C-alpha cells in the first residue's frame, strides 16, 4: 500500500471540507477500499474516514413511514435494527459477505462502489430508494449508471439512504461461493402502485430493473405470472463462474423464488 494521510472528522461538514483537497478519498468500512489500496489500484493522498460521524449512523423511521439509514451504517446494524421496519432489506443486509465484513462494511460504501455483483444496489433500485448526499437527493433510478459508475460527483458523500417500505419484499441471492457476492441476486418489492424487480450480478451494465417482470407481477403477484418470461443472454456477464446463458436463466429462477417467498 502506498502511504497516505489520514483524517477522522466527526461531522459531515468537516468530512466534506477534508475531501475538498486534491487526491482525498472517503473511507467507509474499508472492506473494498483497503484491498484495492493493497493492490495499489488507487493512490489517494489522503483518506477521510467516515466512521467517526455519529450523524451518518443508524436506522430510523421518518414521518412518512420511509426507513432512513445513515450512509455510514454497517451492514450488521441494518440487519439488526431494520428488521422490524423493513424485514426484506434487513435480510439482504444479513446475507452480505460474512459477519466480519458486515461489522465494518457500510451501505454508503457499497452504493458508492456500485460493484455489479453487490447486494445493496438491488435493494436501493428495487425499493425506489432516495440516495441522500451532502448536496442533494438522487432517485435510485437516476443514481446507478453502469458497473462501478454512479451519479456521485468527486468528493460527494452519501449521508443517508431513504427506503419507502413496501407491502412485501424479498431478496434471493445465488451465492458465488468463493467471493460470497451474488452470482445473480434479485430483489422484488410490491408497493401499492406496482411491483419493482431489480437484478444484480447479472448484467454488464450493473444493477437493472426487469420491466417485463414488473409489469406482469403488478397485475398478478405470483411466480406463475412470470413463468414464461426470459431475459436476453446478450449483455449478461459471462465469466468462469457462469456463462451469459446461465446468468440469464438464473434471473428468471431467482425472480420466481423471490416472488414466491414474498407473496
Amino acid at each position, binding site marked *: 500500500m502506498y502511504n497516505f494521510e*489520514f483524517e477522522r472528522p466527526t461531522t459531515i461538514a468537516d468530512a466534506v471540507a477534508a475531501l475538498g483537497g486534491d487526491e482525498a478519498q472517503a473511507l467507509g468500512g474499508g472492506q473494498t477500499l483497503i484491498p484495492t489500496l493493497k493492490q495499489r489500484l488507487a493512490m489517494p493522498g489522503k483518506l477521510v474516514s467516515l466512521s467517526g460521524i455519529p450523524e451518518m449512523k443508524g436506522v430510523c423511521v421518518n414521518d412518512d413511514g420511509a426507513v432512513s439509514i445513515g450512509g455510514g451504517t454497517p451492514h450488521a446494524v441494518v440487519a439488526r435494527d431494520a428488521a422490524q421496519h423493513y424485514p426484506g432489506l434487513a435480510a439482504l443486509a444479513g446475507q452480505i459477505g460474512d459477519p*466480519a465484513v458486515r461489522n*465494518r462494511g457500510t451501505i454508503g460504501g457499497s452504493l458508492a462502489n456500485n460493484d455489479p455483483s453487490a447486494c445493496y444496489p438491488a435493494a436501493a433500485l428495487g425499493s425506489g430508494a432516495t440516495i441522500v448526499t451532502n448536496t442533494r437527493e438522487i432517485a435510485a433510478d437516476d443514481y446507478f449508471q453502469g458497473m462501478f459508475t454512479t451519479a456521485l460527483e468527486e468528493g460527494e458523500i452519501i449521508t443517508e439512504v431513504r427506503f419507502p417500505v413496501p407491502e412485501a419484499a424479498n431478496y434471493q441471492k445465488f451465492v458465488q461461493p468463493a467471493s460470497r457476492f451474488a452470482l445473480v441476486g434479485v430483489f422484488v418489492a410490491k408497493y401499492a402502485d406496482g411491483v419493482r424487480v431489480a437484478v444484480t450480478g447479472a448484467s454488464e451494465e450493473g444493477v437493472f430493473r426487469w420491466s417485463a417482470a414488473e409489469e406482469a407481477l403488478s397485475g398478478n403477484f405470483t411466480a406463475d405470472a412470470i413463468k414464461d418470461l426470459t431475459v436476453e443472454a446478450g449483455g449478461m456477464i459471462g465469466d468462469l463462474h457462469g456463462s451469459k446463458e446461465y446468468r440469464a436463466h438464473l434471473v428468471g429462477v431467482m425472480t420466481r423464488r423471490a416472488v414466491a417467498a414474498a407473496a
Partner: protein
Amino acid sequence: MTQVSMTVNGKSVSGEVEGRTLLVNFLRDHLSLTGTHVGCDTGQCGACMVHVDGDAVKSCNMLALEADGTEVATIEGQANADGSLNTIQQAFQDHHGLQCGFCTPGMVMTAAALLKDNPKPTEAEIRHYLEGNICRCTGYHNIVKAIMAASGQDVNAIAAE
C-alpha cells in the same frame, strides 16, 4: 507518523503509526502480539480476526488509526486469568478442532463473537457464522463440533454425521 492509542486485552497501549498501518501490523509488529495471523491479506480468510469494541473484525482489513480509542481483544487475551485455556479453547483441543493451527486464533475469536450473541447456536448457525474463516487442513467438522461443545450442547448429532 500519528499517535494511536487503544486498549488491547484490557491494557492501554499506544504507538506511532503511518496512515497505511493496518491494525494487524500494529498488533503484531508494534505490540508483538503475533497470535493474530496474516493469512490471505485480502479480507477473505479470517486468520486475522480480532474483536473491536466487541465485534469480530478482520484486522488486515482495518487501519490501525481506525481503531484509535477502541477496545481490542485478541487471542492472547482469551485464556483464563490463571493461564488455563478458556472453554472455547479447551473445546478445540478436546474435539481436535485444529491441525496445523494457523487458522485457529481466528476461529476461536469468531466462535467467541458468535457465542456472545447466540449462546446456543444450531449447527447450521455455526457453519453460517464461520463463512469468513477458512481452514485448509482439517475441514470444518471438528471446529463446528468444538463450538457446539463450548456452548454446552450435545455434539453426538454432529459426530454421527
